[in-house]
């Protein structure tokens, strides 16, 4: 089979590479090992961060649907082979051998190749880590979010990076208990707001702890966890966790076997989580026929993977003389600008350092200037040793900074917004969804939101659209002693109007009960905004509600 471009891997990077190349008239073949296109996107029930110009505020599953639909519209130009593994690169014949459904073999003869093979789960050593019931986080997501199968009754999550935090939240959504999250590092690795979402639902995060052994003979029947000191030695008491699943979210490694085999120059880059190919600013590796995009080029996240895919698709088209130089240069620059924004935050420092090590020197001068241009500041550096802050709970001493000005607040019908977003992350839907201009435009999407309280109407559209569920509205005009809190809600069962619900603080501790007076779904996207009446004294303490078992 001959084609202009073979894309190996139909996840976010691969699909974007294919679509970009097809848009310039390339004939494309996509092969993917799994049973559907979309890669990990098809498991992502949470809303994405990033810029609203791209997909911020959209759930991963919706992005997958959109991309897959775009690909199917190019029927005839993009051919898709699912359940198909690219098993070898034959340099002399310029062929890639493929295997479908574990039995049928064929080869593809492409002019150019984009390797977008994604990543594989890392494992950590502990006795019993091979027992059935020890799952990679991706596997847990596949079971519950793709096939609707309950992965277990009660889960111990190992790792508080973005995946560990997100999957914990998804487990709660699927009705599975999360016993605890253990994290080896002294602070969570993922976005702070992701941690806050699960802390307020009562899931503990044990920092500087890890799993010591799995219990059980035929499958997991529990786990033992313990603290670790600064030297990495066990310390303190062992603690037994009652669970039937141990979910490992301890990082990913780039899936780069084909790149090795194709002779691409590889480099071990800890910041990118493993061996990755050297590349130029167009994602072209040192093998001139092979490009790379997405996690295979270094572990990052789906938003940047999609842009890398577009860059690779654009560059392939350019190398096949299907794009003129001007369009090519302009597009490339605009994609790099988007990447620079996505990588501009506090949490992307590592990625920036990693990419600097593998991007060819000539490209760096041209495209790697953003380090100096982007300076977003946040609360994480000042609070890096605070154990509450480091595990997703806003410490008392900075709550004040997020409290609306009292004089305006106390008489403001409808209430004022409270945005508990203390970390520099690339995200802007709170602003783009604000109809009154109260949440000011971002000069840099990595900035924390700035609010002009005089313009806030308390409409709670930001509450409904914030991907981090970090926006709340408090209306102090409800009564002498009472206020209305408007809280985002994405669990089941959904509270009903008139119902008394438990009101939880930032750690998930119940503080009181409150009556639900309204339940909205402003964006019709399954994020509800629950209006609950609470004591005025607790508006800066209550951050979640829970439907009580007996109604």
């Amino acid at each position: 089979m001959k084609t202009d471009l073979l894309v190996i891997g139909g996840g976010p990077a691969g699909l974007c590479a294919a679509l970009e190349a097809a848009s310039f008239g390339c004939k494309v073949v996509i092969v993917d090992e799994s049973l559907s296109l979309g890669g990990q996107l098809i498991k992502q029930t949470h809303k994405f961060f990033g810029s609203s110009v791209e997909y911020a505020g959209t759930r991963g599953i919706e992005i997958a649907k959109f991309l897959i639909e775009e690909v199917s519209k190019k029927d005839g130009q993009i051919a898709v082979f699912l359940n198909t593994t690219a098993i070898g690169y034959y340099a002399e014949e310029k062929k890639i051998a493929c295997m479908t459904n574990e039995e049928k073999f064929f080869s593809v003869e492409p002019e150019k190749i984009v390797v977008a093979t994604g990543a594989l789960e890392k494992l950590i050593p502990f006795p019993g880590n091979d027992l059935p019931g020890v799952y990679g986080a991706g596997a847990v997501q596949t079971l519950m979010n793709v096939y609707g199968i309950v992965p277990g009754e009660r889960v111990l999550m190992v790792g508080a990076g973005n995946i560990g935090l997100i999957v914990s939240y998804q487990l709660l959504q699927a009705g599975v208990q999360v016993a605890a999250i253990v994290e080896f590092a002294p602070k969570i690795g993922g976005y702070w707001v992701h941690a806050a979402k699960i802390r307020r639902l009562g899931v503990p995060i044990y920092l500087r702890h890890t799993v010591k052994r799995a219990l059980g003979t035929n499958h997991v029947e529990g786990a033992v966890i313990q603290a670790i000191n600064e030297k990495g030695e066990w310390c303190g008491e062992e603690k037994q966790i009652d669970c039937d699943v141990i979910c490992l979210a301890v990082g990913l490694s780039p899936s780069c076997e084909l790149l090795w085999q194709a002779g691409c120059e590889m480099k071990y880059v800890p910041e990118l989580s493993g061996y990755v190919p050297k590349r130029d600013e167009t994602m072209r590796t040192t093998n001139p026929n092979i490009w790379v995009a997405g996690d295979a080029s270094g572990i990052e996240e789906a938003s940047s993977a999609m842009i890398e895919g577009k860059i690779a698709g654009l560059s392939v088209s350019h190398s096949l003389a299907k794009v003129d130089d001007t369009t090519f240069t302009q597009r490339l620059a605009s994609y790099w600008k988007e990447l620079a924004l996505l990588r501009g935050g506090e949490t992307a420092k590592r990625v920036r350092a990693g990419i600097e090590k593998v991007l060819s020197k000539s490209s760096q001068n041209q495209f790697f200037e953003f380090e100096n241009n982007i300076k977003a500041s946040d609360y994480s550096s000042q609070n890096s040793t605070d154990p509450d802050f480091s595990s997703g709970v806003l410490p008392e001493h900075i709550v004040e900074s997020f409290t609306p000005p009292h004089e305006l607040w106390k008489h403001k019908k409808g209430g004022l917004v409270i945005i508990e977003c203390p970390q520099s992350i690339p995200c802007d839907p709170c602003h783009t969804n604000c109809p009154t201009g109260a949440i000011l435009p971002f000069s840099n999407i990595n900035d924390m939101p700035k609010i002009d309280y005089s313009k806030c109407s308390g409409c709670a559209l930001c509450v409904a659209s914030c991907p981090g569920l970090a926006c709340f509205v408090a209306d102090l005009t409800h009564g002498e002693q009472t206020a209305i809190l408007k809280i985002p809600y994405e669990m089941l069962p959904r509270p009903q109007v008139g119902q008394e619900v438990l009101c939880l603080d930032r750690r998930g501790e119940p503080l009181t009960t409150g009556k639900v007076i309204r339940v909205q779904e402003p964006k019709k996207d399954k994020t509800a905004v629950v209006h609950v009446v609470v004591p005025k004294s607790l508006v800066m303490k209550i951050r979640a509600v829970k439907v009580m078992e007996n109604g």
Partner: protein
Amino acid sequence: MKLIKQHPILQFSHGRRVKFTFDGREMEGFEGEPIAAALHANGVRILSYTEKHKRPRGFFCAIGKCSSCFVIVNGIPNIRSCITPLKEGMIVETQHGRGVFRQEAQEDED
């Protein structure tokens, strides 16, 4: 089967229900979904045993990378059950060790 009945975000549309067997036991699953997913929904946690220490192995990566979910399907060993779609009437068996093709096994016996 252990299925999620209600979900705040997702709606699951399953394929046709089909019958298959696992180590001789009759089970039901959804056509086109991975064999490993069907087994998990039927409460099967152990998919294979290791060659040397006979350790039980189950579902782990779900993306065809880790070899933990190898099973025997219709007599063919080393099938990655996490990415192989279920079909009506499949005969699935726990794999012990490396697995042997039925044909080879036959020849060995002869």
